[in-house]
């Protein structure tokens, strides 16, 4: 039995807005194992970001709790780094200064040796003086991965990080993040709405359903690593995609039925 890295106990979240209250998460409980690659999969609006932001300590839950080891997460934790959709680099800083931001905020000198080897690793050496707008989407997202890994967190939370990239770049990025995970063995929680991306990357796929956000089912993905990109065209892989897709569609049917009664 592997150790639990993060534990979510009965997480419930309501958003109170002027137009009323949204029930974004309903009683979500989940253990994230130490060193595992966990994908959270679900249609847009099912509460994936809400769950991830709670795990990052960026906003409070209405009920339940998030634990990192024995600590309860109520605010951002140095062991946990977040990677956002569309890279989220600061446009007024060049790449080097963007990567130095976490160190600046923590009032520490940047770990230049580590940063350099990470830049080398993701093929961004020599681009330190470029500004974000001068880089492609894939390069920007690679830079944001370096920014997060530079401070050596043990948990990486990734919120649809490659959702805005084209299919080719996305495959490249998926390979890269798989390699990084195999080299570093960080605990990664990766949110996506792509079934094949989830299966390609994950040890376990957590499928969520919407309104309110709940965990519908969890799938173990025991495909050996490293997984090549063309594995996605193999019958076994496609069978897994169809299985998960089928469960999501069934879930929708049931929800629709509930709505009628």
């Amino acid at each position, binding site marked *: 039995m592997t150790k639990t890295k993060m534990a979510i106990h009965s997480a419930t979240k309501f958003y109170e807005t002027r137009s009323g209250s949204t029930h974004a998460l309903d009683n979500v409980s989940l253990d994230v194992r130490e060193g595992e690659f966990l994908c959270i999969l679900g249609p847009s609006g099912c509460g994936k970001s809400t769950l991830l932001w709670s795990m990052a300590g960026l906003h409070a839950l209405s009920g339940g709790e998030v634990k990192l080891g024995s600590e309860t997460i109520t605010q951002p934790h140095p062991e946990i780094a977040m990677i956002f959709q569309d890279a989220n680099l600061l446009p*007024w800083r060049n790449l080097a200064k963007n990567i130095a931001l976490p160190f600046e905020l923590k009032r520490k000198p940047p770990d230049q040796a580590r940063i350099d080897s990470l830049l080398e690793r993701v093929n961004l050496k020599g681009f330190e003086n470029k500004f974000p707008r001068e880089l492609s989407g894939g390069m920007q997202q690679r830079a944001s991965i370096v920014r997060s890994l530079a401070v050596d967190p043990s948990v990486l939370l990734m919120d649809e990080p490659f959702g805005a990239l084209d299919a080719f770049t996305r495959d490249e990025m998926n390979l890269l993040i798989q390699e990084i995970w195999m080299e570093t063995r960080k605990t990664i929680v990766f949110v996506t709405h792509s079934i094949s991306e989830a299966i390609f990357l994950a040890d376990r796929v957590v499928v969520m359903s919407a309104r309110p956000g709940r965990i519908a089912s969890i799938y173990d993905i025991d495909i050996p690593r490293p997984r090549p990109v063309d594995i996605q065209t193999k019958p076994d892989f496609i069978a897994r995609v169809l299985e998960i897709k089928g469960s999501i569609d069934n879930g929708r049917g049931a929800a629709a039925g509930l709505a009628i009664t």
Partner: protein
Amino acid sequence: MDKALGNKIPEFNKKPGGAGGSGLAGLSSFGSGDHRSKLEIVVIILVAVVIIGGSEILLRLFNVPQYIIPKPTQIVTALFTEWHFLWPHIVITLYELLTGFFIGGSIGFILAAVITQFPFVEKVVTPYILLLVTTPMLALVPLLILRFGFGSEPRIIAVALASGPMVMINAATGFRRVDLAKIALARSFGASTLQIFTKIRIPMAMPMIIVGLMVGSIFGLLTAIGAEMVGGAEGLGNRLTYYSALIRMPQFFAIIFLLATIGISIYIFFFWLGKKWASWEA
């Protein structure tokens, strides 16, 4: 850390110019020595020579009397012969402008930064700021003179009142642009409220802050000159009234020339500052 931040400034200069827009876009190419920009400079100088030389020739040709429009050569002569009378007035006007702008600009900037954090306070305060923006502060000058006398104080106050609200209203527009993802990013790395302000909010507002400073300082200049025309015995505005009363038009136009030079210098300065600190938003 501050040093690291300062280091980024030269790098803004490294990349080739892209910002610009107005007629002063040509300025960006003064620094670089490539062929095209040399040609541009030649054309700019040629146009200036044709306009100034042309008006000189036309004024001579039609024998326009000096008290209606003086010839460029007369204006330049007046500038040189009167220089030692003029420069103390330049110093006084610049002193009033800089002091008033510094006071007004600082207050405007701080108000903008604070008020945008509290939407309710902003709603309450905004009408009064709008009132200050739309009311010509010159109207208050006679009142200020009654209270503070004919020295520099009433004019400094008028400059501050004219420039402060301009800085405030533009900077507030900048500070209102909240990018929740960028703030969340900073928070996820443990940023304090102050760090979010200095590392995210201020840089994000910088383009609008610079616009506010530019507009505010130009308004300050107009107000300083106007206030000097209303009363007192010093400053370039006062010299305008003085020379026009004596119908000494070459001197009068020499001062107009000086005022234009100050105004354009202000514009160029903030244009340059914008390229340095806000060019990421080109």
